[in-house]
């Protein structure tokens, strides 16, 4: 469970999140809101990439301020632009990067890399330079690299924004099939109809917190 208690965040003078208190327990949670409403900032708080200027974020009892490292092992993060999160030159080596950071033994790393290559249909590309992949393949690789680390929770910040329709569907299916709890930031409302809970952000506050059948139409009305 992720507990958010009286959290506020400011970059210098600029207040971006205001007084959030939430418990996140559902299997699929969507985060929507206008540009600049604070969604990415909120997402980054959840795995301690960002520590709030006020209040506390706790993941299964671990405080992101004190136990940042442990929290990042529990909570995987997928960014919007896969180009900036594939850090090693080859496909298989990038998959292994996070696993090596976990200090896993070599054969376990090889096993998990293999499994990830198969699951995401990347086996033919194992030794391929990552920069030659298509946008959809890059995002699949980025997601695979995070999933191979077997996090308990996965946060995805607009993982499909840069993709074409076919790749959007592919990523959507991949996310759907995740056994883990997922928190998904997206502007793609059709993609969010099946989630358990929707948080609508506006100017750094959660203004709607409800099931998708209620929250999504309300959000659309709010934006028009």
């Amino acid at each position, binding site marked *: 469970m992720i507990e958010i208690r009286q959290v506020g965040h400011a970059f210098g003078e600029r207040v971006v999140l205001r007084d959030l208190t939430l418990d996140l327990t559902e299997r699929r949670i969507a985060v929507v809101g206008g540009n600049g409403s604070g969604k990415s900032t909120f997402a980054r708080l959840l795995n301690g990439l960002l520590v709030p200027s006020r209040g506390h974020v706790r993941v299964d009892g671990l405080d992101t301020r004190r136990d940042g490292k442990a929290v990042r092992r529990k909570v995987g993060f997928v960014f919007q632009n896969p180009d900036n999160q594939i850090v090693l030159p080859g496909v298989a080596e990038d998959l292994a990067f996070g696993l090596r950071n976990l200090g896993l033994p070599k054969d376990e790393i090889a096993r998990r890399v293999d499994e990830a290559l198969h699951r995401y249909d990347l086996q033919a590309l194992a030794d391929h*330079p*990552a920069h030659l992949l298509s946008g959809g393949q890059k995002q699949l690789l980025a997601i695979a690299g995070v999933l191979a680390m077997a996090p308990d929770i996965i946060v995805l910040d607009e993982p499909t924004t840069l993709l074409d329709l076919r790749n959007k569907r592919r990523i959507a299916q991949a996310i759907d099939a995740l056994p883990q709890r997922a928190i998904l930031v997206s502007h793609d409302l059709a993609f969010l109809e099946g989630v358990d809970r929707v948080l609508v952000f506006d100017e750094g506050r959660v203004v709607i917190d409800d099931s998708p059948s209620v929250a999504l139409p309300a959000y659309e009305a709010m934006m028009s």
Partner: protein
Amino acid sequence: MIPYVPGESPVHRCPPGRKILALVAAGTVLFALPRLDLALAAALLALAATGWLYRVAGIPGRLMLAQLRPLAWILAVLVLVQLALDGWQAGLLVTARLSALVLLAGLVTLTTRSSDLIEALQRGLVWAKPLGANPAKVGLAIALTLRFIPVLAAIAAEVREAQRARGLEGSLVALTVPVVVRMLKMSDDIAAAIDARSYDPDRG
């Protein structure tokens, strides 16, 4: 960017550390021989041996020549200077030496996965730890360089195109500013991504 060409040849299977050592040794011998005739013989021999190693590794001739392309201009200038100063033998020596070395270095990268290369370098750097070097960081820095050179090239091409579309052409400043701005933003994102995947520089 030089890609890795998968294969099962003896050159591929040779441990990366040994390949790096061989490269260093070849470079030392090539540039240390004092007499012109000896040095020339060694350089030509090295060139021939390198060509043979490429065949053993199963690398096509096209890829072999591609290794020399970035060097072509430098070589041309050097040869001309040497010809003017010291005669044709010296010119030939410079060409043979540099080509052999560049081809050998190319062969190492073509037949070694960058992760294996980096790991070997890290192990080789362990002795430098007491001097304050951090092999894990050096390894990651090399890997990141290999990974992001093509990305930077793509960004530069994109920016140049966008500027051309708006009638702005050929200005280095106009190109540099947006490229640097995007690089800074990008490096922020990359740092966050590395953090998000539990990288710990003190572990390695």
